[in-house]
């Protein structure tokens, strides 16, 4: 084999091995990662929704959102991409009331997800802001991403 070719193939394979090893350990989509990303994303967006609706004193810390996720029922391992993730999100609203809601989460292999909450908890697609305008509801359905190896 040509020496340059040989060196390049060796180098390329070494790089590939390095890259795949650094990311090994199966899927990057795991329950803890999804739970913390979903809770954090929800909290940020809920603060924005509160701002639109004119509620004051709402902060990420005050909401104290948390999520508990499950994929495909008890008989399916809670890891990997899929549209069958169900996450129970718990948070405190601006009146100190604690709420819980089931979010349907579609997790993708690229460590991003799309989450949709129950409308009786998060409101409809659009909400009315303090000026009376209809604007998109940031928590109705939202995207998020997380570090697949944090």
């Amino acid at each position, binding site marked *: 084999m*040509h020496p*340059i*070719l040989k*060196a*390049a*193939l060796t*180098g*390329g*394979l070494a*790089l*590939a091995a*390095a*890259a*795949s090893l*650094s*990311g*090994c350990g*199966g*899927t*990057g*989509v795991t329950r803890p990662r999804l739970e913390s*990303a979903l809770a*954090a*994303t*929800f*909290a*940020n*967006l809920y603060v*924005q929704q509160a701002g639109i609706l004119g509620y004051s004193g709402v902060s990420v810390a005050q909401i104290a959102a948390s999520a508990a996720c499950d994929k495909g029922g008890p008989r399916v391992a809670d890891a*990997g*991409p*899929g549209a069958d993730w169900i996450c129970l999100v718990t948070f405190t609203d601006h009146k100190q009331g604690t709420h819980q809601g089931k979010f349907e989460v579609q997790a*993708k*292999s*690229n*460590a*991003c997800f799309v989450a949709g909450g129950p409308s009786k908890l998060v409101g409809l697609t659009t909400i009315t802001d303090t000026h009376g305008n209809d604007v*998109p509801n*940031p928590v109705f*359905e*939202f*995207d*998020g*991403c*997380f*570090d*697949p*190896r*944090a």
Partner: protein
Amino acid sequence: MTATTSARIREVRRPGAANRRPGTPTALRWELRKLAAQARARYTLLGSLLAPVLLVLVLDGQQRPPKDNIYGRHIHDSGYAMPLLVLGFAAQWVFPLLTALVAGDIFASEDQHGTWKTVLTRSVSRTQIFWAKTVASVLFALSVLLLLAASTITASSLIVGRQSLVGLTGQLLPSHAALPLVLASWATAIAPLIGFTAVAVLLSVVSRNPAVGVVGPVVIGLVMQLAGSLGGLDAVRHLLLTTPFESWHGLLTEDRFSGPLIDGLLVSAGWTVVCLAVAYAVLRRRDITGG
């Protein structure tokens, strides 16, 4: 056997300037000049400049935003969302196609025109021609990326506005923070784009057929995209050349992460080195019999 006197005279009056040999930069300059003379290359650059403007206008007029793609739901909220939507979309097949239009053709067209024998019987080596063509392809790919990015970002911020952008953890990014992140996100496409350029170069050299060189990388990109979207193939996913196109996600979360970015650089470098090395070896060894 004796040579005639005239041959001896000819030898003596050979001017010294004739000994100045052309280098790879000369060959590169001519590759670029050839590209500039080709309608395909000119239209690709023009399209990269104008198509985003059109796309932004059309998307902006949509009542229903394309929610299936990341940032699709935010296109009316911020002018910074549209470039990220377009970036995600371009990675699916547009980037591989745009670079392959030149890189997939640049070697094979010499076979098509039968001009290998014309250029390789001058004073430049196959190695110099190889690098000139490869560098020309990479420069073209980078120009296309630059035009697409500049055009999309400018059009979108003029048409939609420069509102703050929702990050990928739901956090609000004010305009002055969003712009550098959007620019950086587009910059992360450089490495995999060069990787796809190398794939196109390889196909162009090996197939000697411009159609294979242009269509091949697009098909490979789509197949990789599909393989990457399947679950349970994570080890494979890491090695795919399409995965680095999504590494910008880590720039837009609240806690930024760079693992996929670094992997993306390594994987792109790996693909680039292997493809170029094989292409080089094949070009060096092959018999030029056509033309």
